[in-house]
């Protein structure tokens, strides 16, 4: 596991020394803090609006970081051939994949922790109370990002960087439209079309499983089973997708 840890740490170090990460984090923080302005300009409970916009910004910027950093950190390692010196050492290819993945999710996690703290402080200032449920929402977003980062890793070893980023972005978009896809399978006329969409529905993750924003914003009860299933669902997807990434990378000639 030492090699995995070293690769993950190097990936994390590379990201935190890249200016582009700070650009995203800066935007995210500005977005969360400026949600107070939206709260003042909109009719309704100001705190709820801040939470709503803040959580949406948290999810959006985490997704952006996962998609773009995967392109930079995994594809660049292969394209710039720094991977040669790693794989010539006593390191298995699955260790490289796992190390890069863990490095990527650590960056997303660090970003999420930062945005969550900023959001909690903003809510504390406005509402005068610490909303610990925002921590829960951050954790659920992290679960979603674990799945997305696994797909980003798979696409990074499967295809070219830009195409890989677009594919990861597509997983994010389609993953949040799973319910609509299911409805589509019920209503389309052609059996073949229905079957194709059903395959897409089952192959891609339903990212709405990690969306507890409404419950957190409106202080609604959250069923424990839903959380349990979300955790299981995320880890099952991560294991399967990383396994596929390793399968593809294992026999790949690097030129």
């Amino acid at each position, binding site marked *: 596991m030492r*090699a995995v840890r070293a*690769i993950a740490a190097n990936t994390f170090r590379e990201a935190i020394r890249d200016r582009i990460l700070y650009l995203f984090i800066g935007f995210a923080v500005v977005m969360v803090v400026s949600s107070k302005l939206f709260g003042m300009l909109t009719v309704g409970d100001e705190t709820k609006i801040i939470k709503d916009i803040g959580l949406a910004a948290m999810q959006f910027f985490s997704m952006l970081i996962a998609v773009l950093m995967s392109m930079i950190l995994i594809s660049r390692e292969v394209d710039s051939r720094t991977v040669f010196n790693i794989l010539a*050492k006593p390191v298995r290819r699955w260790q490289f994949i796992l190390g890069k993945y863990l490095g990527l999710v650590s960056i997303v996690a660090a970003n999420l922790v930062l945005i969550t703290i900023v959001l909690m402080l903003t809510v504390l200032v406005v509402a005068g109370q610490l909303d610990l449920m925002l921590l829960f929402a951050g954790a659920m977003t992290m679960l979603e990002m674990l799945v997305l980062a696994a797909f980003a890793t798979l696409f990074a070893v499967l295809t070219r960087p830009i195409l890989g980023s677009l594919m990861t972005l597509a997983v994010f978009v389609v993953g949040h439209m799973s319910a609509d896809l299911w409805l589509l399978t019920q209503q389309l006329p052609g059996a073949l079309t229905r079957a194709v969409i059903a395959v897409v529905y089952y192959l891609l993750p339903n990212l709405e499983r990690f969306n507890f924003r409404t419950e957190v914003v409106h202080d609604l009860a959250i069923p424990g089973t839903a959380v349990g299933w979300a955790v299981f669902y995320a880890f099952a997807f991560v294991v399967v997708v990383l396994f596929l990434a390793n399968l593809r990378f294992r026999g790949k000639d690097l030129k």
Partner: protein
Amino acid sequence: MAEIQLSVKDLQKTFHPGLFEDSIEVLRGLSFEVARGEIFGFLGPNGAGKTTTIKAITEIIYPDRGEIMVCGLPHTSLEAKRRIGFMSESPYIYRHLTGREYLRFSGELLGLDRTVLAHRITRVLDQVGMSGRADRTMGTYSKGMLQRVALGQALLGEPELLILDEPMSGLDPVGRRDVRDIILTQAAAGVTVFFSTHIIPDVEMICDRVAIVVDGRVQAIGSVSELVSEEPTSYEATFFGAVPSDLRTPLEAHHLAGGASWVRVATENRDSLIHELGDQEAKVISLDPVPTTLEDLLMRHYEKTGS
């Protein structure tokens, strides 16, 4: 028989670039062995299959056929990889890391203990002459400095077999001399060195044995003296009393200066030249065989294969 540190048998590799492009057969049954303690040069023109062979040994690509053994172990085993120190062609580096951080990262991949690693980093930086510049990010390094750090990471695991892909390519004379010195020092310490190059003087200067690779096959193998001790390919003569342009013997090259003539003829035309100079009563100062050089040998194989 010396212990074999690297054995490559019948290595074959064909690349399939794309649906509408022809396959490229890069390795066509390449075989050779490197004995313990040797400095072994892998000499060939660009595109001969040198880097592909090294990538196959280091498991960066997978051969279609063939067997590779490192220190008696299958090359894919972690134990075999632990015994290899590898430096790739053109050092591919992390611009965000300092030289020292890069070595630390490399040492962690080798599984070295923290204390041992710190000690080795200091020693290796000293060996490659980078102690004073180890804490600068590698994005600011010159090519020579990058090559030194890359060589440092290859030495970090105290390898039994050092595999270097074009280690002196692109370096200035001082850099090349330094890399040569490091290779010689390692060999003196018992490390087997296998390096690819297309620079012939490098091979002539330091290699115990050399393999000439052209068109994905080893065309000749042996010590430099063995390889060049074949029949001379030509003769050079210096004489007075005859003009080269008047000679009927086919000349490869000729020159006339201050009354003395110099000509070079192919070996098969030597006797004809001697008779003609005798007929013209020329005064022959010297008639010397021109030894075959590695370059001649390389070019001969290169032309023979039609590469």
